[in-house]
């Protein structure tokens, strides 16, 4: 990691670590812990999506579907077949990877936004399967009796325990992603985003990298889905529809596409917006999201993170931000 990132990493890590203590001291917002658990789960999805959007220049409208594949695989294997959740989780991840590979290989061999089209259709199909396969998924009335999680016989019961588990995993995924970005693979991804033809001519197998990053994003989404399942212990298809895929894209865009920190910021912010501050809008929620997207696209194409970067203290020229060794 670069020094700037290492610095931000430490600060964010500390903020996240003291958050439960802080929230506990302020009355009326103790449920913010719960919102942050969801934000952490969604952050896993958005980290993968941010790599795909910001660094490989592709959009996926099926992240909610991959999230759902992980969630339902875990749900079905644990609730119906009594599997250990920790064994069900990798099965969901592998399944999502296989599916992403099948969708991604043909769509990503072509230049342009074929992946967006392919994933749009695929996401809708997956959602229909979740709704219609009533025997397996419980259909629209949902799936119940999903067990919680336990580590070495010790049940994760309190919100605070869930909070630290989820955010611990987010930080591991973040670390992994930063390592990738500041390496041979990351340079290849950034090169693809900037000058695909030149990258290819310099020896980068561009199609293979795009597929890899898409598969990686699907795996992260599936793992997030598994945790979601065991945290909520109830599944309904509406959590995995197209609207959710768009929401994930929006989270990445609001925060800032070419920055993993941006993805994290956007996810936390929009999770609070969706779970907390927008409840009053009820059915008009979609309109609000549309408005947010419009404002970001028009006035903040680099996302909120660009404002923080330009601000005092956080100001770093783009030269030094991208400069130096990994």
């Amino acid at each position, binding site marked *: 990691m670069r020094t700037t990132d290492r610095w931000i990493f430490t600060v964010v890590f500390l903020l996240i670590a003291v958050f439960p203590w802080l929230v506990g001291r302020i009355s009326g917002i103790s449920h913010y812990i719960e919102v942050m658990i969801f934000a952490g789960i969604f952050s896993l999805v958005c980290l993968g999506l941010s790599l795909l959007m910001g660094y490989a220049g592709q959009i996926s409208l099926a992240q909610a579907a991959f999230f759902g594949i992980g969630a339902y695989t875990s749900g079905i294997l644990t609730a119906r077949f009594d599997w250990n959740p920790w064994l069900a989780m990798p099965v969901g991840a592998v399944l999502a990877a296989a599916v992403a590979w099948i969708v991604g290989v043909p769509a990503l061999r072509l230049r342009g936004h074929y992946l967006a089209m392919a994933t749009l259709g695929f996401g809708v199909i997956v959602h229909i399967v979740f709704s219609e396969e009533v025997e397996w998924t419980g259909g629209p009335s949902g799936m119940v009796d999903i067990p919680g999680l336990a580590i070495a016989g010790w049940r994760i019961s309190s919100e605070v325990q869930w909070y630290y588990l989820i955010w611990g995993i987010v930080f591991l995924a973040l670390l992994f992603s930063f390592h990738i970005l500041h390496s041979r693979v990351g340079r290849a991804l950034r090169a693809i985003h900037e000058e695909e033809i030149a990258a*290819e001519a310099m020896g980068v197998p561009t199609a293979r990298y795009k597929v890899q990053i898409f598969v990686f994003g699907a795996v992260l989404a599936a793992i997030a889905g598994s945790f979601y399942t065991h945290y909520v212990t109830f599944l309904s298809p509406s959590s995995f529809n197209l609207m959710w895929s768009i929401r994930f894209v929006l989270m990445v865009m609001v925060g800032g596409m070419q920055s993993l920190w941006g993805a994290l910021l956007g996810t936390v912010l929009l999770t609070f917006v969706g779970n907390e501050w927008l409840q009053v809008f009820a059915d008009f929620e979609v309109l609000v999201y549309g408005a947010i997207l419009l404002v970001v696209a028009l006035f903040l194409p680099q996302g909120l993170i660009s404002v923080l970067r330009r601000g005092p203290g956080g100001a770093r020229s783009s030269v030094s931000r991208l400069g130096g060794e990994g």
Partner: protein
Amino acid sequence: MEHPARQPGASILELNDIQMSFGGVHALKGINHAVPEGIIQAVIGPNGAGKTTLFHCISGLLNPTEGSILFRGAEINGLAPHRIAHLGISRTFQHVALFKSMTVLENVMLGRHSRTRSGFWATGLRFPGMRSEERNIHKKAEAFLDLVGLADASRLQAGTLPLGKQKILEIARALATEPRLVLLDEPAGGLNMTETEELGVLIQKICQTGITVVLVEHDMNLVMDISDQILVLHYGQYLASGTPQHIKDDPAVIEAYLGEN
């Protein structure tokens, strides 16, 4: 990668009846030519002669409609560009195609891609082998920047360099792939006289390390100065080929360039 002893006269690149059509437009109408290893080969011709199209065919960005391209005796047409890069052909672009928001150094480091191997897991989990490879990439990239004289600019964003330096940076990036054959597409375009002279010296230096250079260029002084052999194209067809002296006196070339007067 080691360059094996060159056999004088052996051709590194053979073009056999290369044709390239875009719908009804015939950009190349059957080009036959052989490039001996270790020389500086220029390709010239008026605008629209098909020079850049020919480069795209050799580097795999276009697949010729007809004909075959042999690189060191093996057919390469139809291969993906990254495969061709791996085999040892690299190139620069007429319209600079740098990774503009990456640093100068990172651009050259990207050139090392096909000569290194750490994958997704190795980099994500930071395996020890990956770290030493990364150090190696860094060191080699710096050496290539040194070679072209851009070492001082290594931390700058590539897009902030003046055009002349961007062109040189593209050459460094191409060299970083350790090619046996490098295609330079109008490297002197946009360079001033001093820069063009320095470029000529650099190209000769590249050739002396055993890399064959194929050069598309409009600056005739540069072409005549440094080329061993010149191929002239005209409207997608072969017009003439030979040493600079021979080309200068060729009546067909003079006519193509100067018209009928």
